Structure formats: structure tokens, C-alpha cells
């Protein structure tokens, strides 16, 4: 275990640990040329152990006897020798001792290692098999991940006899945590302690991933150099990535000695191709672990890895199911709000927060915000949304460090550390945002601080210190957003967009429908315009002809009847004209521009006075504003209101008509008041209806469409029209127009 390989020995990560140029002394190494199997490289101790003057350039069969009657040439010609060391057999060189021969190929080299076998082994193969089977049974008995982890470290301690066995797990940021431990108290406990990622340099991590088992049997060993044949061309350094005898970094050995561990072994837990964790074994005394036991440990670790993978997949599936259920909850509440998805989202606060495991969430749509939980204030949320709209080119943005992603958030007091954002609309900056708190405040520190291990003079390598370093590292960071969470966010985004699009489609359908009916209406009024007016014209025309040509034959009554026929037809014609005008007014486009109402009302007053010749009318027209509106439509409004005022004051000998304007922050209001016959407020709502009349035709003529026009024009301008009055006490008609945006 190369942790904690110091946080401040910066040279570490550049150390060529794959090509140390030496091996550990509990064996020897040969590199053979192919196909003649001559020695091109050898560890410096090879000649002495083999009792040959020099092994170089000799064929291996020349100095090593066959294994079980099989020549080395035959053994090494096996195609199955790959980069994982393969046992070829036990050899007993003339120099004494027994060695396990292991061969592997890597980087074009055939590497033959001879590892000294233990004089006595605690385990025989069948026992190893029994231990492994027992471990499998223990795992099957429980689906609790921590039980499996505990069982693994206990089993490995039993197999290896090390004083302490630890299981480390690396998180997404490569920070490590001790999650299981088995020991005999000769070495301090590390359970629950965390170590920053820097503790294990990247190239060491990669080596752990490739070669899962590594043994250092004595920290005090003296490395044996690997020496090339004097006749060899410069072959470059030998890559020992997969070698079992590889010598380790002197810095690490020094660290081990300081930590009071003479022997260490590590077994990688590799899960789906990534280094999930490490099982680290430490011993106060030098300790050898035979190859078969190491293989059994690797087996345990791999079984554990499978177990972990199963648990992780189950947890992921569970999380996914949970997320899906949360998503459907959110979709349900959104569906309840029709087009307003944002209201639906924030309605189910719990689901919204849980969805991204967040402490706060916000929906920002067109400068408007809705929030749940702890979030930055509205102003900041809008700023964040604007920034994302401008710079974000991804539909789903997640960060565990908001201040790095959006530097301006540094100024936000108590700014959340992490954020997830999904973009709903690019057209109008719309986002759903989630915020996560800082990790240090949310992670439960398995503190029960055991006594930190004391290593005099080695404070810098102290795990406790490492934790402090870890805290420094994660300050300002939230828990990361996992790929499953990102997927869920993308899914939710699609669903929301689906809702938005469906709404848009429905609107488009509606608008197509409207357009069609508008077209139909247009066609209708076009034909009304042409065809409906004609018969009235004919009635008028022919009754006129009749009156002219049959004049002498007609009685006075006949002529009166003819006149009524003509008048009625003419009125009907006018009604048609007015109706068409009313309908046209609803269909034509508004041509808005600044309109001076003083001018408009002056013209309307002149027009109205044409019908009031000889009458005394006092006009009080105040100063009127200039508004943004369609001039001809406003002219029609003014004309209608003033001619009404003139009409309904006809019975007054002293008519007074007052026009004045008022202003609020958002609108202009213009009212026309008269002292005429007024109306009953009970019918106020009928005033603005088409063909609604308040008075008998013979009292006050008119088609009853004027005020309907007024109201329609106001509606089209986003304004309103209303009336107040009392019978015989005059009437006041007011319209309001919204102020245009600056």
C-alpha cells in the first residue's frame, strides 16, 4: 500500500515506479530473448543463486534443469503466457533453496521471475480453497455491503497473517476512506479516516489497477539491480508493471519503516475497470505471503468487487427508480398546472429537492423566480440564469463548485457550493436550478476519533493531517453530481420540454384554428359585404322607383308605407355596414404610433357638433396625453364617446361635456362625462354589447354598436373601457390605455 505516500514529497508522482531498475531480493529475474531463450537481462543476484559464472547470452536450458522433465524451451513456448505471471513450477537451483518460477510477457519482453518459496506455508492449496469457499458462503448469507467488506478484510488477514488489514474506498474525486478494518491492535486503527487523493500519485493508482497484488515483504530490503548483458544493445529500462518482484519507491520504504510496518501487501479492488478501492495489509515484522495465498487474496478481493458491483448496481437501480418516481411526481404536479410548469415544479417541494439531493431549488423563467429551500436571492438567481443562458452550451450543467464555474457567485453570502441547472428554453432564458450545500457540512464524519497514530517526527504523513488536507480540498465543494443524477436531470428536462412543447403545440393548434376561423370570418364578412348590402339597396331603390312612377296612384298612406320600407332597408344597410366595420376592426392589424389625444378629441368634437347645430353645449376639454395607439381606432373611440355625449344631452338646454385625463404609473385614463339622460347602472354591463341599446329608437337613434367598438378597440390595445352613470344624472365613460414600455 503506497498510501499515504506523503502529500509533500512532490517528486513522488514523477518517480518511475514501473521501471525501478531493480527487484526485491526474495528472488531473481531473467529476461530472455525469443525464440532462442537466451538471457539478455538478469538481476545481479542471479549468477550467485544459479551458481553460474554468467547467465548472459546463454540459453536457459543450458543452466536450468527441466521442470518435471519438460524443457524450458517447451515451457516458455506456451502461447498462453501473457502479462499475468504464470506459474511454471518449482525449481531448486544448485545454489540452494526452492523457487517458484513465474513467467509473463510485457512490452515485448519475456520476463522470468523466480520467487523463493516459504520454508513453511500456513496453508495448503486445499485449505485455501476451503477458505475461499467459506468467504463466498459468508457473502451469500448477507446482502449488506459492510458485512461483505468486513468478511473480506477478516478473511485476508486470516489468509496472510498480517497484523492489520484495511479496506479503502475511493470516491469520485479519488479521496479515500477506510471503510473496513481487521487487526490485532499491534498497529493503530484507521477505520473511518479519510485521505486526500494526493496521497496516492496517479501513476501508482494506475499500477494498482493493472497489477492487482503487490507484496513488500521487508521494508528494509536492499534492492537488487537488473543488469543487461554486456553484449546487449541498449534496450532501455525494463518495464516491471506486471512483475511480482518489482522493487518499490525508496520513499515508500522509508515511510513504511517510519510507520512501524516492516511488511505490506496490497490487493486492488477493481470494479468495472476502475480502481474502486484497495485492501492494504500491514505487518510489524517482515512477512512473506506465498503466491498461492496471494492469488487466494486476489480471488477474495475480486469476489468482493463483484459483490460491491452488485450492491452498487442495486443502489443505482434503486436510486433510478426513486428518481423516476420523483420525476413522475413532479410531472403530475406540473400537469395539474397546465401551461405553467414552473408552478407545478415548486408545488411538490420535497420531490423537487430530493430529485437532485439538493437543499434548495429555483425555477427562473423570463426574469421571474420561484424558489424552494435555501437558494441565492432573486437577483442572484437571475444573474446565474443570465450567465448560463449566455455561456452555457449544455442542456444540463452540474458543478460541485459553483464559485469555480461562476466566479461572481463568490460575492453571494452563504452561497451554496454545488449547483445543477437544466435549460428549458433557449429563447427565453428559463432554467430549473438546484443547489447543494458544502460537503464538509453534509458528510457525516465517522469521527469517533480514535487516537491518531503517533509517528514521532513524521507528522506530515499523519492521516489526521491528511483529513485536514481533505477538508481543505473539499472546502467550497458540494457532493458531486453522479452520472445517474445527470441522466435523471436530462430526463426531467426532456419531460418538462415535452410539456412546454405540447403546450406550444396546443397553442399552435389553437392559433391555426383561430387563423382558420379568422379566415372563415373574413370570407364571411366579405360575402356579407357584397351580398347582404345589395338586397337592402334594391329595396330602397325599387321603393323609390315605385314612389316616383306611381306617385299619382298612391295614397298618402301608401307613400308613408313606402317610406317606412325604404327607411328600414336603409337602417338595415347601415347595421350591416356597422357590423362589418366592427368585425373589420377586430381583424385589422394595430398600427401603433404616438397619438396626441388633444388632436383626436378636437377632431371628434368638430364632427359631433355637426349633429348639434344650434344647441348650446359647454365643452371642458382638459389637457390630454400623447399615447401609443392606432390613430384611426382612437379617432373612432373619441368620435363614439363624444357623439354619444352630444346625443344623450339633446334634452338638456345647457349641456356640459367634460373630457379629462388621469395618469397612474402604468396607464392613462381618459373620461368623457356629460350631464345627459344617463343610464341605470343595473344595465351597465350591457352598455358595451353589440346592438345593445339603452333607449328607445325614437328617442335616441343609433345602431347600438358604438360602445362595443370602443370596448373592442380598448381590448385590442390592452386597455379597458367602463361606464358610470345614473338615470337623468348624466354618464361618464372612461377608457384606459397601458403606458408603453420605455
Amino acid at each position, binding site marked *: 500500500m503506497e498510501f499515504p505516500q506523503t502529500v509533500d514529497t512532490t517528486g513522488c508522482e514523477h518517480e518511475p515506479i514501473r521501471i525501478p531498475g531493480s527487484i526485491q531480493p526474495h528472488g531473481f529475474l531473467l529476461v530472455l530473448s525469443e525464440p532462442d531463450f537466451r538471457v539478455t537481462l538478469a538481476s545481479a543476484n542471479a549468477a550467485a543463486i544459479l551458481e553460474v559464472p554468467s547467465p548472459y547470452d546463454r540459453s536457459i536450458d543450458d543452466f536450468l534443469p527441466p521442470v518435471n522433465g519438460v524443457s524450458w524451451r517447451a515451457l516458455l513456448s506456451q502461447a498462453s503466457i501473457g502479462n499475468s505471471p504464470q506459474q511454471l513450477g518449482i525449481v531448486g537451483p544448485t545454489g540452494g533453496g526452492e523457487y517458484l518460477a513465474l513467467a509473463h510477457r510485457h512490452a515485448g519482453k519475456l520476463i522470468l521471475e523466480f520467487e523463493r518459496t516459504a520454508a513453511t506455508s500456513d496453508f495448503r492449496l486445499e485449505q485455501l480453497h476451503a477458505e475461499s469457499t467459506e468467504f463466498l458462503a459468508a457473502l451469500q448469507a448477507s446482502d449488506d455491503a459492510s458485512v461483505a467488506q468486513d468478511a473480506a478484510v477478516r478473511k485476508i488477514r486470516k489468509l496472510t497473517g498480517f497484523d492489520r488489514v484495511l479496506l479503502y474506498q475511493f470516491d469520485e474525486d479519488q479521496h479515500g476512506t477506510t471503510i473496513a478494518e481487521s487487526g490485532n491492535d499491534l498497529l493503530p486503527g484507521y477505520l473511518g479516516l479519510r485521505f486526500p487523493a494526493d496521497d496516492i500519485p496517479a501513476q501508482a493508482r494506475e499500477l494498482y489497477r493493472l497489477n492487482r497484488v503487490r507484496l513488500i515483504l521487508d521494508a528494509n530490503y536492499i534492492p537488487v539491480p537488473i543488469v543487461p548483458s554486456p553484449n546487449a544493445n541498449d534496450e532501455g529500462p525494463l518495464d516491471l508493471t506486471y512483475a511480482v518482484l518489482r522493487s518499490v519507491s525508496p520513499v515508500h520504504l522509508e515511510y513504511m519503516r517510519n510507520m512501524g510496518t516492516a511488511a505490506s501487501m496490497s490487493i486492488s479492488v477493481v470494479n468495472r475497470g476502475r480502481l474502486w478501492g484497495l485492501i492494504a495489509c500491514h505487518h510489524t515484522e517482515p512477512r512473506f505471503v506465498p503466491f498461492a495465498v496471494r492469488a487466494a487474496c486476489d480471488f477474495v478481493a475480486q469476489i468482493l468487487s463483484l459483490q460491491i458491483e452488485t450492491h452498487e448496481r442495486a443502489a443505482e437501480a434503486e436510486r433510478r427508480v426513486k428518481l423516476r418516481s420523483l420525476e413522475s411526481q413532479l410531472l403530475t404536479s406540473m400537469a395539474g398546472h397546465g401551461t405553467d410548469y414552473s408552478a407545478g415544479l415548486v408545488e411538490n417541494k420535497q420531490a423537487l429537492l430530493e430529485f437532485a439531493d439538493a437543499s434548495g431549488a429555483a425555477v427562473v423563467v423570463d426574469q421571474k423566480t420561484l424558489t424552494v429551500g435555501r437558494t441565492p436571492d432573486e437577483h442572484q438567481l437571475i444573474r446565474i440564469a443570465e450567465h448560463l443562458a449566455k455561456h452555457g452550451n449544455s442542456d444540463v450543467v452540474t458543478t460541485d463548485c459553483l464559485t469555480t464555474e461562476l466566479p461572481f457567485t463568490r460575492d453571494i453570502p452563504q452561497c451554496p457550493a454545488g449547483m445543477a441547472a437544466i435549460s428549458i428554453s433557449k429563447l427565453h432564458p428559463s432554467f430549473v436550478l438546484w443547489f447543494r450545500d458544502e460537503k464538509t457540512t453534509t458528510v457525516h464524519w465517522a469521527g469517533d476519533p480514535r487516537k491518531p497514530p503517533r509517528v514521532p517526527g513524521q507528522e506530515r504523513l499523519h492521516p489526521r493531517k491528511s483529513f485536514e488536507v481533505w477538508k481543505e480540498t473539499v472546502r467550497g465543494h458540494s457532493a458531486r453530481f453522479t452520472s445517474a443524477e445527470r441522466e435523471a436531470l436530462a430526463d426531467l428536462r426532456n419531460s418538462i420540454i415535452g410539456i412546454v412543447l405540447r403546450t406550444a403545440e396546443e397553442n399552435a393548434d389553437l392559433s391555426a384554428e383561430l387563423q382558420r376561423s379568422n379566415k372563415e370570418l373574413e370570407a364571411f364578412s366579405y360575402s356579407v359585404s357584397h351580398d347582404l348590402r*345589395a338586397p337592402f*339597396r334594391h329595396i330602397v331603390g*325599387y321603393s*323609390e322607383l315605385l314612389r316616383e312612377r306611381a306617385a299619382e296612384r298612391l295614397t298618402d298612406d301608401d307613400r308613408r308605407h313606402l317610406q317606412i320600407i325604404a327607411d328600414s332597408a336603409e337602417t338595415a344597410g347601415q347595421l350591416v355596414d356597422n357590423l362589418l*366595420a366592427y368585425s*373589420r376592426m377586430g381583424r*385589422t392589424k394595430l398600427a401603433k404610433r404616438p397619438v396626441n389625444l388633444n388632436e383626436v378629441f378636437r377632431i371628434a368634437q368638430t364632427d359631433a357638433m355637426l349633429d348639434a347645430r344650434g344647441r348650446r353645449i359647454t365643452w371642458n376639454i382638459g389637457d390630454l396625453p400623447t399615447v401609443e395607439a392606432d390613430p384611426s381606432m382612437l379617432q373612432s373611440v373619441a368620435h363614439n364617446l363624444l357623439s354619444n355625449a352630444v346625443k344623450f344631452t339633446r334634452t338638456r338646454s345647457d349641456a356640459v361635456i367634460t373630457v379629462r385625463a388621469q395618469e397612474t404609473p402604468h396607464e392613462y385614463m381618459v373620461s368623457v362625462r356629460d350631464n345627459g339622460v344617463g343610464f341605470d347602472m343595473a344595465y351597465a354591463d350591457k352598455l358595451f354589447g353589440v346592438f345593445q341599446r339603452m333607449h328607445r329608437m325614437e328617442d335616441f337613434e343609433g345602431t347600438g354598436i358604438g360602445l362595443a367598438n370602443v370596448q373592442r378597440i380598448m381590448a385590442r390595445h390592452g386597455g379597458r373601457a367602463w361606464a358610470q352613470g345614473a338615470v337623468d344624472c348624466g354618464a361618464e365613460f372612461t377608457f384606459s390605455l397601458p403606458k408603453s414600455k420605455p
Partner: protein
Amino acid sequence: MTNLLKPILLVEDNPKDLELTLVALAKSNLANDVVTARDGVEALDYLMRRGNWTERPQGNPAVVLLDLKLPKLDGIQVLKAIRSDSALQSLPVVILTSSREEQDLINSYRLGVNAYVVKPVGFPDFIEAIQSLGMFWAVLNEPPPGSVKPRFADAPAS
């Protein structure tokens, strides 16, 4: 006796409107003949001396009073044909219609109509409109060159 004044071409499909218009024109004491066409094709036949009108003497009418809603070719199409015919393009055309629809007005002016008159419902107004139209276009308006007889004084003896 042949009328030396150029005729007025009235294009109107509705017999009642036709009668009322003729009454109105008669009341205005115009000396011009009034030729009637009952649809767009007939109007163009007359103007281009085709169909039933191949035998008519050469010369354009003083004015065309053209209804918009017509069988076969409508008023707008007739107007378009007139304006794209080199012999007819400067012929005065007055649209005489029931329609107050903006699109008709815009289309007509875009195609170079000389006047656009909405037939009033009231009879006296109607008479007045027709009379002033007839007077203006048939008598007062200077006909374009190429017309048979621009002025009474210049009328050759037959």
C-alpha cells in the same frame, strides 16, 4: 342614328343593380350609350372586340363601370386584363361595388383603378353617385389619346 359619344360600359351581373344603375344613368341625362356586360368575360369580349362583339366599330368606351363580384372573371381580373393590354391600359375604369372591404380597395388601386365607389344603400345617394360618376368620366374627363371622339365639337359628321 349613331351616337358619336363614346359609350359607357357597365359591367354588372345583378339584374336589379343593373336596372337601378341604368335608371340612375338615365336620370343624369347623359347622351352616351350604355353598353352592358353581365360578366367579366363579356366585358373583355366587348373591349377586345371578340365573341359577340367582333363586329362592333373600333374605339374604347368613355369609361368602364365595373362591379367586383362577377361570374367567370371577377372585376379584379378584368381590371388586371385591361391594365395589361396596351390598347386598353389607359382606359378609365371605375369600380362600382357593394364591398367596403379594404382588401378590395387595396387590390383595385394597386391595379390602377381610376375610382372606387361603394354603392350606397340609400337610393338618392345611389343616383347621385352614379350620376356624378357618369358625368365626370363620360363628359368632363379628358379621354386619353386614341379614343374615338374626345370632344363634341370635334365629332365628325356621319
